[in-house]
């Protein structure tokens, strides 16, 4: 893949009059106007069924809203075809709350797939990058197994790592902490902090109910309620919430 498919920087993400509803259901996002905080770890909160996962999927370009505008760097990406949106997509990593691994490929093949497919780096570099991340999380013995043959913890981890190997600018994670286990969770958070120091995953959006996990980050909060988005700033030094 050539460099023309990579965008240099994602600076702004904004909704304008955006409405999304699943087929046959009432809108989960209703005429929302919202500018997302950038260079932050953003915790998307809301009660169950309010549309947290839907919001994250819209942000990752996996769901197309029925109306409104979604601007990334002042470009309305909703008008774009799959090919036109590709540079943005490659800058956005998305992790699933469940599923999402390609079942007829090994964990190693799953991790290397986006790098190899888009030829983002040479095959040698891609293998080295995947090998190093597999080693870092100590899942070498499962690397050449298919998803059905490995523990759920490793499946979930592999799904998270597949987004990380792309070294995206924006990281969108749906319930990342569920099923990871304590040690893996700390290693994962540590890895994200390291990536952010290196200049990757600058903008993180995630939904979770795990307050202990979120306490490992300095975060801002977006509430989703009745189809609207509300920003709640958090003083991370005092961890006191200012509405």
């Amino acid at each position: 893949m050539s460099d023309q498919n990579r965008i240099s920087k994602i600076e702004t993400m904004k909704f304008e009059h955006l409405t999304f509803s699943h087929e046959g259901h009432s809108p989960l996002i209703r005429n929302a106007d919202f500018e997302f905080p950038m260079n932050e770890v953003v915790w998307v909160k809301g009660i169950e069924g309010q549309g947290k996962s839907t919001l994250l999927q819209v942000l990752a370009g996996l769901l197309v809203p029925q109306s409104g505008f979604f601007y990334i760097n002042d470009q309305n990406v909703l008008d774009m075809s799959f090919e036109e949106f590709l540079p943005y997509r490659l800058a956005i990593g998305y992790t699933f709350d469940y599923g999402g691994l390609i079942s007829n490929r090994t964990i190693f093949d799953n991790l290397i797939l986006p790098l190899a497919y888009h030829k983002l780096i040479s095959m040698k570099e891609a293998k080295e990058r995947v090998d190093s991340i597999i080693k870092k999380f100590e899942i070498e013995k499962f690397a050449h197994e298919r998803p059905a043959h490995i523990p759920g913890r490793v499946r979930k981890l592999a799904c998270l790592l597949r987004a990380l190997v792309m070294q995206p600018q924006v990281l969108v994670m749906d319930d990342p902490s569920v099923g990871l286990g304590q040690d893996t969770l700390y290693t994962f958070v540590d890895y994200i902090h390291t990536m952010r120091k290196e200049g990757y995953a600058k903008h993180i959006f995630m939904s979770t109910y795990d307050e202990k996990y979120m306490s490992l980050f300095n975060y801002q909060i977006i509430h989703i309620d009745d189809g609207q988005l509300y920003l709640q700033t958090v003083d991370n030094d005092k961890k006191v919430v200012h509405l």
Partner: protein
Amino acid sequence: MGSLWSAIDARICTLGRFVTKNIEYTLRVLLMVYLSIKAAVLDQAQGFRTIINVILSQIYFTGWQALPLVSVMALATGSVVVLQSMANLSLLGGTQMIGNFLIVMIVREAGPLLVALVVIARSGTAVASEIGNMRANREIEALESMGINPLSFIVFPRVLGGVISVVCLAFYFNILSLIGGFFITKFLQDMPFSFYLDSLMRGFAKEDVLIFFAKNSFSGMIIFVVSCYQGLSVKKSPHEVPQVTTQAVVNSVIYVIVFNLTVTTLFYLNQLQNLGVV
């Protein structure tokens, strides 16, 4: 009188709904074909090497692994048709026409239909359930999130591999049923092989090549496009997978039969026109 009209009206409405539903379905399927070809051509990242493995494995599963079943069907069909046609043509004194008869029966009609049915039963169901499970397991979403277009990565190679397999299987079916059928029935009939082969050669026309490729390649395309479409139509739940698989079989069978019937009708209308009958 009023109730009669309302009954007729209700029937017309039902028919209208049935027709519009099928037209919409056909248009959606055709749109998917267009988009998958466009995506495969436009996809700069996806070289031929990326999809060659998927095409080859599709040919292996659909073509190679179907050979035993197709062989049995070809030999059985060939034996029955050769034996019946020899017996009846002998009675009518037209043994020299056996080649024409077998070409019409096997190459033009039975071959494409039987091969299509075997492929629907084996591979159409497999493709629909595989893609349906990928959908339920969110693998299709995962491909999209990685910037991989499922239409060029999943649909296009399966359709291409499927079409190649169906054409090859049909060729194999025709040869095996025409030649194998003759030798299997050898102990029941005394026709010299050279006479039989000569009759087949005389019965074979260039239109048969056209019909062979038209029927088999489009049948292959119909089966795999419909199966992929049905697989992709799974929304979220695994319980939809058997439903879409059944629907893939039903729709493929209907479309293939209608298509074969249309080609046959057009061909014979054309022949009648050439003869000056119509």
